[in-house]
């Protein structure tokens, strides 16, 4: 009934109640967003990797795919060794190299793009949206390259290694076979796909690959297959998707630490806010609390009533905050999606029930606990002394 009284009192002090709810909502939103930020990149990158359908990556030692310009030489032999390992179903090599792409009629300025040399049918890195997969002597572009050059399926473009002089060394003329979307492209990155042999020849990297994607058979364990490959070949790195996520996680640890600090600050602010409000509320009602103690209400009863007041404030403010956090996460995501070097598909904020529930529960527990302290203090005061002071 004390809680009922408190709930009704909220209505008599609308400004104070609204300000408190706003404070709790904002801090909850920040807390939830920081929890989402702390987990978002790793989670969404992990989901992106898993969506490609290749469980292992073969890379030069100490690197990750798209990490450096290092390559694995002598891949043809290596490929056969890897493919013969039990559990390996498919090996999809990728060579990445920067190229300059020009329209054949020189009508528009050339563009710099990342070229991916891949075998036909391996779409672990891109998705065909128009036209056909590239055959030998053909190139598949992303929509931006096509727009920049005015090229479409059937058009002819010229390619050369990026940085090569106007008097071209190696160069190639290729027909645009189709248009695709690239899963790991950052915003503003232009990408094209050639057949692996074509790009190796263009970039003078015969029998070299940047990395290879390895698909394992159903029921095979990625760690076991990885160990089996490494037992046979020790000059490369074999990384599971979990391993890639772990390394990314380690590289982004500063993000998580910053998010953790900000989340903690949010929680502390919310705790102080609710604690202060309850302390003010309790001090305004000391006489009433003393009178209730005098008529025989137990300490637990009164503390419970006052704690319920804090809990309700936290529950309402926290609920608003959770909704707010989703909106704020969407806004921040739109800003951070331009972050250089990260695939567009990777999100900083992954809205998950887990994060929202965690933020709400943390806020509820911390806020209620903050309300308990002044409530407990109030019931420890000497009832008779307060009644004496309250007497006119």
């Amino acid at each position, binding site marked *: 009934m004390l809680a009922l009284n408190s709930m009704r009192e909220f209505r008599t002090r609308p400004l104070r109640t609204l300000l408190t709810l706003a404070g709790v909502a904002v801090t909850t939103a920040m807390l939830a967003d920081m929890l989402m930020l702390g987990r978002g990149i790793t989670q969404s990158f992990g989901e992106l990797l898993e969506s490609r359908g290749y469980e292992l990556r073969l890379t030069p030692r100490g690197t990750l795919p798209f990490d450096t310009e290092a390559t694995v030489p002598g891949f043809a032999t290596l490929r056969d060794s890897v493919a013969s390992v039990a559990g390996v179903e498919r090996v999809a090599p990728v060579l990445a190299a920067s190229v300059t792409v020009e329209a054949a009629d020189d009508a528009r300025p050339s563009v710099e793009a990342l070229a991916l040399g891949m075998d036909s049918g391996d779409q672990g890195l891109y998705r065909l949206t128009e036209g056909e997969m590239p055959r030998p002597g053909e190139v598949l572009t992303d929509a931006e390259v096509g727009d920049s050059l005015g090229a479409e399926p059937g058009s002819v473009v010229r390619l050369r290694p990026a940085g090569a002089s106007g008097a071209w060394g190696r160069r190639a003329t290729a027909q645009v076979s189709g248009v695709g979307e690239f899963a790991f492209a950052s915003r503003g990155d232009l990408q094209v796909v050639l057949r692996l042999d074509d790009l190796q020849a263009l970039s003078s990297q015969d029998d070299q690959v940047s990395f290879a994607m390895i698909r394992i058979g159903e029921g095979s364990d990625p760690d076991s297959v990885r160990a089996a490959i490494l037992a046979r070949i020790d000059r490369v790195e074999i990384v599971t998707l979990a391993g890639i996520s772990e390394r990314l996680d380690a590289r982004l640890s500063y993000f998580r630490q910053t998010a953790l600090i900000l989340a903690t600050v949010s929680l502390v602010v919310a705790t102080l806010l609710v604690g202060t409000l309850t302390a003010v509320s309790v001090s305004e009602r000391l006489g009433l609390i003393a009178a209730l103690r*005098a008529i*025989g209400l*137990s*300490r637990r009863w009164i503390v419970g009533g006052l704690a319920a007041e804090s809990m309700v404030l936290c529950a309402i403010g926290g609920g608003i905050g959770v909704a707010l956090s989703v909106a704020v996460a969407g806004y921040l995501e739109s800003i951070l999606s331009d972050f250089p070097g990260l695939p567009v598909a990777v999100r900083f904020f992954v809205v998950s029930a887990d994060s929202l529930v965690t933020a709400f529960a943390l806020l509820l527990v911390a806020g209620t606990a903050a309300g308990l302290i002044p409530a407990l203090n109030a019931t420890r005061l000497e009832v008779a002394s307060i009644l004496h002071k*309250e007497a006119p």
Partner: protein
Amino acid sequence: MSEIVVAARDLTRDYRTGRARVRALRGVSINVPRGDFLAVTGPSGSGKSTLLHLLGGVDTPTSGEVVFLGRNLARMSVEERAALRLNQVGLVFQRFHLLPMLTALENVELPLAAARVPRGRRRARAAAVLDRVALADRLHHGPGELSGGQCQRVAIARALANEPALVLADEPTGELDRATSREVLALFQSLNAEGTTVVVATHDLELAAGAKRSIEVVDGRTAP
């Protein structure tokens, strides 16, 4: 001989105000038998409220003892004394101390709820007690919608809710006008006539005169 509801023996109570020690009560002894209506009079600061708080177990004496229905309050814990007050003592304050956002009915239900009386029974009991203090038509009014006299009657109803052995009222007419004070006195007399034991601390001579007997406290001592 009537049963003694509460007996105070040689009570003293010291308070510390800053560095000074103030003796509010100096060796007070009284017996309150069942059915008594006792007025404790005296000027402000004489120790009336302190005596009431000690009799009800709200406060503990510096020395001396209070025996309530045969139980020495000094041997009870804080929460045991709270439970005793909840079930055996009805307290009425000068400033009513009603929960401002609860209705009269809900305010009277409060001690019943704390005593874990089931909702249906406590509703009925609270309504009956409010009817007893002539507020049956104000059950759903909040303190803000009631006059001072009505608020005090709600407070008296709250004190009576758990059918206490003793009602302690500290300056119950202190905030009321003369006419309303008389209504409150009449209510106490009526309750006492029905068997309720009442002790009232007051400097209202008319209220004191309406009690069965009175004692005067001056400078922490009962006047001869």
